[in-house]
């Protein structure tokens, strides 16, 4: 995307810092539009999913049969609510906390490829960058809990700190496995390494990656502070946890941050394990929609890829919603023991298993091997020659 816009602007004007900032602002606007649309749709979908699971209809009135204008009504309601800052609150931190919670969840989309090469900023270490930045979301929640000057908020934010710091470890280990298979942290290259039919996706590469995928899902749900891991807000014990004292627009910013983070981890999971923009059937290459055929064919091929990617994101978000309304909330000790006693050892085992699998079956089993990158070939070659010595 960067290159397309850059080329278009270079033809109309010569270089300069205004143009660079203009391109950056354009990209931010496009990303914000996509993410905010996802968030608005997600708030509506959450109500619908919750309703159906509880044998209700969910919203039905606003905007016709399916209540699809509900997010707009919600937004208007939140904007017109009274904005309250408690007397005991730390006023400055109370004001900036919601934005600190939202900004990281949005910033990760800067490095998230939506299709082959359709990325705002292609980073060499995109997977690492996204994991690092997603971990910063907890700051906003701790600060919110602290600055509210309320015991409920404080307890909620302390739980969140313990939970997020713990679950980051197995999450990173699980994400390491596809990185190892592709031999790079560049998300565009990781997606490219899974091109072709769906059995080339890393989740189906071997039994270890399949286990690692489900651990990734568990830790991603825990990392985004969603039920059954939503101890930070635990409304049955802590009123509303860290956002007890928030109302109106500031509260809605927390909400947006949560949904943006859900979309971000779904996208990351889709690229790392589920082939990213590669559909189950390589439709684009069957129909001849590649860059080799022509620029417009390439564009439509990429467009199909972007639709694939967004569909996988949406499926991930819907899965997390179904999980929330199905499972009961865990206790804090159960959450921490699950992380350290089960998730973390399992991911470590998977990591060792995958390395052995790569060495034992460098060409895959049953004649199905995913298209390898140059780096993995090179690493396998080096390890083999070291073993011979």
């Amino acid at each position, binding site marked *: 995307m960067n290159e397309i816009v850059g080329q278009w602007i270079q033809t109309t004007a010569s270089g*300069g*810092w205004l143009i*660079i*900032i203009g391109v950056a602002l354009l990209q931010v606007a496009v990303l914000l539009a996509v993410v905010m649309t996802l968030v608005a749709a997600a708030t509506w979908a959450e109500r619908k999913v919750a309703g159906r699971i509880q044998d209700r209809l969910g919203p039905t009135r606003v905007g016709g049969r399916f209540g699809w204008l509900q997010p707009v009504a919600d937004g208007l309601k939140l904007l017109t609510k009274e904005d309250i800052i408690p007397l*005991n609150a*730390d006023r*400055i*931190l109370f004001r*900036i906390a919601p934005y600190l919670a939202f900004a990281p969840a949005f910033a990760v989309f800067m490095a998230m490829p939506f299709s082959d090469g359709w990325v705002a900023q292609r*980073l*060499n*270490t995109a997977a*690492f*960058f996204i*994991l*690092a*930045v997603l*971990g*910063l979301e*907890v*700051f906003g929640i*701790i*600060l919110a*809990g*602290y*600055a509210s*000057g309320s015991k409920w908020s*404080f307890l909620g*934010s*302390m739980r969140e*700190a*313990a939970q*997020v*710091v713990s679950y*980051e470890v197995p999450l990173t280990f699980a994400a390491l496995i596809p990185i190892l298979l592709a*031999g*790079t*942290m560049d998300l565009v290259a990781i997606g490219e390494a899974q091109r072709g039919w769906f059995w080339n996706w890393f989740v189906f590469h071997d039994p270890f990656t399949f286990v690692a995928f489900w651990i990734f899902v568990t830790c991603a749900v825990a990392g985004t502070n969603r039920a059954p891991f939503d101890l930070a807000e635990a409304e049955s014990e802590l009123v509303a946890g860290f956002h007890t004292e928030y109302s109106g627009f500031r509260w809605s910013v927390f909400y947006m941050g949560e949904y943006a983070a859900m979309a971000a981890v779904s996208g990351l999971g889709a690229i790392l394990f589920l082939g990213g923009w590669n559909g189950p059937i390589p439709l684009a290459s069957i129909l001849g929609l590649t860059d080799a055929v022509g620029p417009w064919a390439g564009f439509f091929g990429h467009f199909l890829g972007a639709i694939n990617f967004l569909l996988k994101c949406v499926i991930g978000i819907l899965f997390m919603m179904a999980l929330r309304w199905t499972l009961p909330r865990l206790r804090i000790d159960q959450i921490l023991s699950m992380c350290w006693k089960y998730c973390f050892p399992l991911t470590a085992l998977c990591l060792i298993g995958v390395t052995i699998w790569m060495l034992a079956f460098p060409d895959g089993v049953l004649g199905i091997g995913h298209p390898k990158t140059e*780096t993995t070939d*090179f*690493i396998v070659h*080096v390890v083999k020659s070291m073993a011979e010595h």
Partner: protein
Amino acid sequence: MDATAIFFWLLAALAVAGALLVVITPHIVHAAVGLILALSAVAGLFFLAGAEFLGAMQIMIYVGGTVVLLAFGVMLTARLTFVRMRTTADQWVIAILLAAPLAIILLQSAWAYGHLRSAQVSSETRSMEAEAVSATDLGLALVGVRPQVDGASGSDPRSASNHATMEGYILPFELVSVHLLVVMIGAAYLARRRME
């Protein structure tokens, strides 16, 4: 004045402002927030310089590490609402005595390389940036493999100068891991002793 310079000064100002906030505020949680600001701005400077891996590392280790610091700061001050720390005059004197030499050295080195300040980002440096060592090469070098050195053609000047360190960085890497392991075992031991 190009975009790089504007963003450099913006991020540098943010980093200095955050660092000043850490020193000046009497409020421990405000100090932690200032630390987050300063460290994040430094990460931004790394990204601006094209060192993505270093920038992500800065976020992961330093900015992420302050989560724990912040949590402890909040926990320790939770009983007294919004505790304030007073810095006495003798503490100021000791701090200035320690910090002043470092500031002098840093300022001297910043002004010593005049040619770096006026460096023009030409198309040549841009192409060099594109061929910069990727994170994969760095990772391989850490486990003792140097692909660029091993499979390099004779004309590459980098391969000739690096021939002596062909084994990569496996020894320092392992030393650091052993060091971290010792620290972790020590921390666990101390924590357990106190709980009994």
